[in-house]
């Protein structure tokens, strides 16, 4: 337990180090000079420079120093204050171990940094892109695209699923068509999407829509077909008409399943987004990654991946919280 706390505090300080260390000049920060008037890379990344004791600005050194200090404190049985939930401690512990060992692997020259850019480099790159409003532009482009397609998928998937679940004849006609299309992976549509819609947003939106549409559709069908007979009978018995059965029973009882579909659909849409952006458009996180790859700018590639990861978690959390606040009865 104490060890975990120690590691947690380490990670916290590491994050603090990342955030407070001055931005290198190469990434838009203020240039720092040494005593002789020569320029200093404030991040002091190993692929550019050998380790020197005097490089006080290196967040790595800073963190290692703090880590040693804390380990000493720990050995002296110092009690760390209990300020954070244990789940967070554990999560940050595992993430922290990953980040630290990753940083060390490159720092110790076990792996070439171009093949695995260390966290400090990635963060610096991202800081730089952020300062130049480069990152924001791409995030905005991606998010706009994603949400357009995602809402389109909800607006088409839920009503269609509803019709398929409720009208036997309709589903007999439509089901085979949908099943044919469903098994084609959405990115395979890219060439045709570009032929049909040209370069730009439309083909990307089409691909993303295709990816998130089917989970939403299938879950809507499943949820509505799973409506309990006894609930339908209950509402009819209370004087409900056909529309009441649809709106007051089927929809709420299917809602959790539909929402699961929406979350899965969002995840798949997110995957399709990056795929589509690698080809069809000229802005967006996927495009940023592809562009950086062409320039062998691996920190930006990794930074793009990190941003995608963080945004994905962020939106999924929002969706989950929305679900929880609507489905309070479960």
């Amino acid at each position: 337990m104490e060890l975990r706390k120690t590691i947690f505090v380490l990670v916290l300080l590491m994050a603090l180090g990342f955030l407070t260390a001055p931005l290198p000049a190469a990434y838009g920060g203020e240039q720092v000079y040494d005593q002789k008037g020569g320029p200093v890379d404030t991040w002091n990344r190993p692929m550019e420079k050998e380790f020197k004791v005097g490089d006080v600005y290196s967040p790595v050194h800073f963190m290692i120093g703090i880590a040693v200090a804390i380990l000493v404190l720990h050995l002296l049985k110092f009690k760390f204050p209990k300020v954070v939930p244990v789940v967070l401690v554990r999560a940050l512990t595992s993430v922290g171990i990953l980040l630290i060992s990753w940083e060390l692997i490159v720092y110790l020259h076990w792996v070439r940094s171009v093949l695995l850019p260390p966290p400090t480099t990635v963060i610096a790159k991202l800081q730089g892109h952020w300062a130049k409003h480069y990152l924001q532009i791409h995030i905005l482009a991606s998010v706009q695209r994603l949400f357009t397609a995602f809402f389109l998928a909800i607006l088409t998937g839920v009503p269609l699923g509803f019709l398929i679940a409720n009208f036997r004849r309709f589903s007999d006609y439509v089901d085979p068509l949908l099943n044919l299309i469903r098994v084609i992976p959405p990115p395979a549509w890219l060439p045709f999407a570009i032929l049909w819609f040209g370069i730009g947003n439309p083909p990307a939106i089409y691909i993303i829509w295709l990816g998130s549409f089917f989970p939403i559709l299938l879950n809507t069908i499943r949820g509505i077909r799973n409506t309990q007979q006894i609930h339908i009978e209950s509402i009819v018995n209370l004087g409900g008409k056909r529309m009441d059965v649809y709106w007051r029973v089927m929809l709420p009882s299917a809602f959790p399943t539909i929402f699961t579909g929406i979350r899965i659909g969002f995840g798949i849409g997110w995957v399709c987004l990056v795929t589509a952006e690698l080809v069809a458009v000229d802005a967006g996180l996927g495009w940023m990654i592809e562009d950086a790859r062409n320039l062998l700018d691996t920190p930006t590639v990794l930074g793009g991946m990190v941003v995608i990861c963080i945004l994905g978690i962020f939106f999924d959390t929002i969706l989950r919280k929305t679900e929880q606040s609507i489905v309070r009865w479960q």
Partner: protein
Amino acid sequence: MMRASVERNTALQRADNFAAGVSAAGTKTIQNGRHVIEIENVSKSFFVYSSNGETVITEKKRFFSRKKPCELVALKDVTLSIDHGEFVSFLGPSGCGKSTLLRILAGFEYPSSGNVKCKGECIQGPHPQRAMVFQSERAVFPWLTVEGNISLGPRLQGTEGEVRKERVAKTIELIELKGFEKAYPKTLSGGMLQRVAVGRAIVNHPELLLMDEPFGALDAQTRNNLQDHVIRIWQSIDQSIVFVTHDIEEAAYLSNRVIVFTARPGRIREVVTINLPHPRERTSPEFLEYRNHLADLIRH
């Protein structure tokens, strides 16, 4: 005078009685000869698949199986009428068709032969005036609060605003769930859920309340409490109740008449009229006599 008040027995009047609540107890009159429900020669059979014509295997037939379609007779030649204001119990062994008959009365199923009439008209389908309390408490809508569940009936009937609010509040009071208005069903106990189910059914002041083993899955104490509840509700609202049970004591404790069914195919074995005033004493010799009589009927 009491006669006259019952004569103009509209839904409005019932609502008034209901609003008066428990104080109206004692005005209960059973009008012999004024039938709410008439069941004439009703039989009901289901089609099932069976390998030897006797043991029922499945409802569906697989392609290569040798099972033959056969008829499962659930009810046979049931004739019965229920008077206005009466409390009737269906008593019989499991699988004898009690639920089936009740579902026919509710309008969820139709008899294979024979007629079922409600106030002289053939039953065409479900109607809010014949409210059902289902065998399982899963019938309560889990996505609505207690209040939401109970107010759904009036809402669907187009009762709006203050009237609805008042009615719902009265019902919640009657089922003694005050303070749980905003609770979701998952947070309630089984007995409370059953009370919600009962409340949902009575809030519309139905003429006929159909209850299918509503307390089957509850412990003895809760069950006794809820039985008293039902009696109180029955006395305060001018309505008839059909109550399905396989518990002999429950039938004897609650009803004016107990219809005893035979095992499948369900026929009426005997109709036992219980001439005891409410509230009944479970240990009185008369009660025990009725109970033993019913037990004999069930056993043989």
